[in-house]
């Protein structure tokens, strides 16, 4: 049958795409466990040496600490902002609502390098550049639209009578928010937290411009690569990749899992 042949073709096609996307990462993983200094084949022996090196590197530790602080703070701030905007869109009708939403969704469409330059100019003008806070603020602006899109999608699935039902049963607007809106959006909120954290954890351009002396993990990676050929970069890369993937997969599983459940 034609369907069968098509299925095989599509399967190969998808396989090829995955190979294309993940092969470099796989290589990085393989070489991070390889004793040879240069990434060549044949491989040397299996070793954890590069991991031990970064484990003992105070610079890397400081960068990881910075990255964790920045990405977790960004996640909370961006998700809060995203939730508020999504709710304002769900609840209210007002003039210029179209432009309002378009403006909110704008940041990810701006080239990162331009965004980074603008952030640097602006933050240094108001005396906020060169601190960890600067990165958190900039990343929040950058990632809030993703949080808003996820939460908005969830709110659209909600029966609009639910909130009114909470008022009708004696709940004030704040109580309705706490006991109905937030629990209903919980899966989207958790997903948004994971996703924004992942984006922030990976982000390089903006961090590099506004961070000053506070290096995050991607900045440290660049410095290592700039200096010389050092296999520790493969070890760090693998670590960053696994962290981000875990967060993104978590976000997907939580959001889609709940969606399937509420549709069955």
């Amino acid at each position, binding site marked *: 049958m034609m369907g069968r042949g098509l299925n095989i073709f599509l399967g190969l096609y998808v396989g090829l795409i995955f190979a294309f996307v993940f092969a470099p990462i796989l290589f990085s993983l393989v070489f991070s466990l390889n004793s040879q200094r240069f990434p060549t084949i044949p491989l040397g022996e299996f070793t954890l040496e590069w991991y031990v090196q970064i484990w003992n590197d105070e610079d890397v530790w400081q960068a990881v600490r910075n990255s964790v602080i920045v990405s977790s703070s960004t996640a909370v701030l961006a998700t809060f902002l995203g939730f508020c905007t999504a709710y304002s869109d769900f609840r209210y009708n007002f003039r210029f609502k179209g432009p309002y939403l378009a403006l909110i969704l704008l940041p990810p469409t701006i080239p990162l390098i331009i965004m980074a330059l603008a952030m640097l100019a602006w933050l240094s003008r108001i005396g906020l550049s060169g601190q960890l806070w600067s990165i958190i603020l900039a990343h929040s602006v950058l990632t809030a639209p993703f949080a808003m899109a996820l939460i908005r999608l969830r709110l659209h699935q909600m029966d609009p*009578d639910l909130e009114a*039902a909470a*008022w009708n*049963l004696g709940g004030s607007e704040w109580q309705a928010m706490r006991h109905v809106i937030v629990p209903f959006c919980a899966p989207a909120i958790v997903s948004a937290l994971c996703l924004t954290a992942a984006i922030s954890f990976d982000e390089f351009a903006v961090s590099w411009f506004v961070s000053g002396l506070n290096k995050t993990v991607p900045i440290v990676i660049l410095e290592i690569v700039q200096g010389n050929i050092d296999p520790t970069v493969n070890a760090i890369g693998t670590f960053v990749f696994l962290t981000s993937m875990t967060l993104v997969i978590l976000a997907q599983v939580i959001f889609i899992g709940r969606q399937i459940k*509420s549709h069955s």
Partner: protein
Amino acid sequence: MSEPLVTFRNVEKRFDDFVAVRDMSLDIHEGEFLAIMGSSGCGKTTTLRMLAGLEAPTSGEIRIGGRLMNDVKPHERDTPLVWQSLALFPFLTARENVEFGLKMRGMAAAERKRRALDWLERMQIEAFAERNVATLSGGQKQRVALARSLVMEPRMLLLDEPLSALDANLVIRMQGVLTRLQRELGITFVYVTHSQSEAFAMADRVVIMSQGDIAQIGSPKDIYRAPANRFVAEFVGRNNILSGTVGETGGNGLHIDTPQGRFVAHMPETVPAQGAEVSFTVSADLVTLSLTEPEAVNKVQATLISEEFIGSVVTLFFEGADRLEFKVQMQERALLELDLEPGSAVWLSWEAENANILEDN
């Protein structure tokens, strides 16, 4: 009668240019089962939402228990609503749904659990108390929604087409549940529906709305037997409507000259002037059918066009002189004895007291 529980005084509700409710004045009494009926967009749901505080009237006054409610927020009222969509909280169990209102009031967990379980038991769904509401059937959800409102022990329960999502058998069952609850609790039910059978089966009084106006208020029997105007006559039941001008007003009733001849109607309270245009209705089930010309004051000759069966009752459609259309409702058993077929010519007759003059055309 004592002070009404709810009064609407000249209430109007506009949405931009659209008038949803126009100059409404209505009393709702303590302990009555009031149905508000009309087709979609007639303002019945807006009326209910104004009672719950979800819409504020544009002008006029709404009082509940004497207190002016125009600007009272929904959560400061005691007007639980059973939603058309049910609006159960999907992330909670049946019991947690029922407890919700008590929790908002700040009741202790043990007490609110006890009360919620009491109500679930009363609604015969205690077995599903700890189940997520999403997993319940339509009828079970309906009962959770009722329990969630009634556990608040309100003076008045609002219901917005609560049975519209259920299948026919279940609707009849739930009608029984609702009327029994209302009698036992003795509280006021305000029930919005587009279904005539639901309204007439359950309500003490029915309000019929049309395009934001109240078309008629009365008991189901009043509305069925004596529709006040053409809208109600056409909306409710199977009414034959005839129009003509008032002839002399004799002692035996009002004489009306129509293209089909002169008919005598029951004398209304306000007698129209001679020569005035009037319409009257004759209920389809109050018409007598005979093969030979009967000894009756009101009679017309007509030809059978078609038949329509609904259970044991059959509706016959007739045509007469001057484009007269006439409907007659009778038991199927009685029809068999007459042995009619399409094209048969018969006499239709009715008593003067069964001809009801419409207040306006």
